[in-house]
């Protein structure tokens, strides 16, 4: 899959939903040289893209690099963006593609492990003294995070998009370039693996 291409052949923005219209106008303004429009796009999407890529890569430095690549791609392709396409989906698609590319790179994996060893692995929620239920949830949330980090990349991406980003199967298919049926089974397999891990730890 070429994650850097937006794909839509429709023109005109009058009938677009407000979010898409707003994104399209921002991109057009940016393409016309208005850098403030780019900052608006950045403010709108950077946080969620950073969280998403962090969940996929398990490392903030890698997440930062991937999201930088996403925004650079937006800079390059702003003028050619088609109004009916979803900027959000397009950006997530590029991010997913870039994460997959880095995930296959042994050098990147080695860097992540080295940073984890130096810093003390993944960050953990800090709500363990806020009552029994909160403590239990915090423990479960941390265990899920660790189990997700151990999933094969395609399953991890599908799980993160579904459970943390609340994307539909159709959207996940569009973002990852997989068939909807494949998305369905990836999510199911990921859930089974996470569930097994949680059961092993007696958290379910």
């Amino acid at each position, binding site marked *: 899959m070429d994650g850097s291409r937006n794909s839509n052949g429709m023109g005109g923005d009058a009938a677009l939903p407000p979010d898409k219209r707003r994104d399209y106008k921002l991109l057009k303004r*940016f*393409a*016309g*040289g208005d*850098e403030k429009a*780019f900052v608006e796009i*950045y403010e709108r999407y*950077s*946080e969620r893209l*950073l*969280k998403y890529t*962090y*969940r996929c890569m398990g490392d*903030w430095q890698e*997440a*930062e690099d991937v*999201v*930088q690549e996403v*925004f*650079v791609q937006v*800079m*390059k392709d*702003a*003028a*050619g963006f088609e109004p009916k396409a979803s900027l959000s989906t397009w950006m997530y698609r590029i991010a997913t593609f870039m994460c997959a590319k880095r995930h296959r790179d042994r050098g990147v994996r080695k860097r992540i492990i080295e940073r984890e060893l130096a810093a003390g692995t993944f*960050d953990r*929620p800090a*709500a363990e003294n806020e009552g029994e239920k*909160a403590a239990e*949830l*915090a423990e*479960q*949330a*941390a*265990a*899920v*995070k660790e189990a997700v980090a151990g999933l094969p990349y395609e399953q991890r991406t599908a799980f993160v998009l*579904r*459970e*943390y980003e609340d994307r*539909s*199967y159709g959207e996940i298919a569009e973002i990852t370039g997989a068939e909807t049926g494949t998305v*369905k*089974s990836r*999510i*199911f397999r990921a*859930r*089974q693996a*996470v*569930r097994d891990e*949680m*059961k092993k730890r007696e958290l*379910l």
Partner: protein
Amino acid sequence: MKKPGPGCDAVKEKVSMFLDGELCREEAGKLLERIRNCAEEGCRECVELMEDLKKLREACRCPEAGCFVPPEVRENLKARLMRIMSGGHGGAGA
């Protein structure tokens, strides 16, 4: 007492889809009926799966599962992008 059979894996996948709202009303109804019947015959695998997957979802969506972006990551990224933009962007075709 009923035991899981060869067709049960497909049913379990549907449990996952049901929780995601990806089954139509008719399919959802059939699934719930099947699970209920199995439970009455002594097989609770799908009931337990549904309960566990609900708990998993709760664990993913509780505030404790929140992902906090370190401020320095956001600041670095913005600074890097602003440098790239001022060094090269010229609008269309840059």
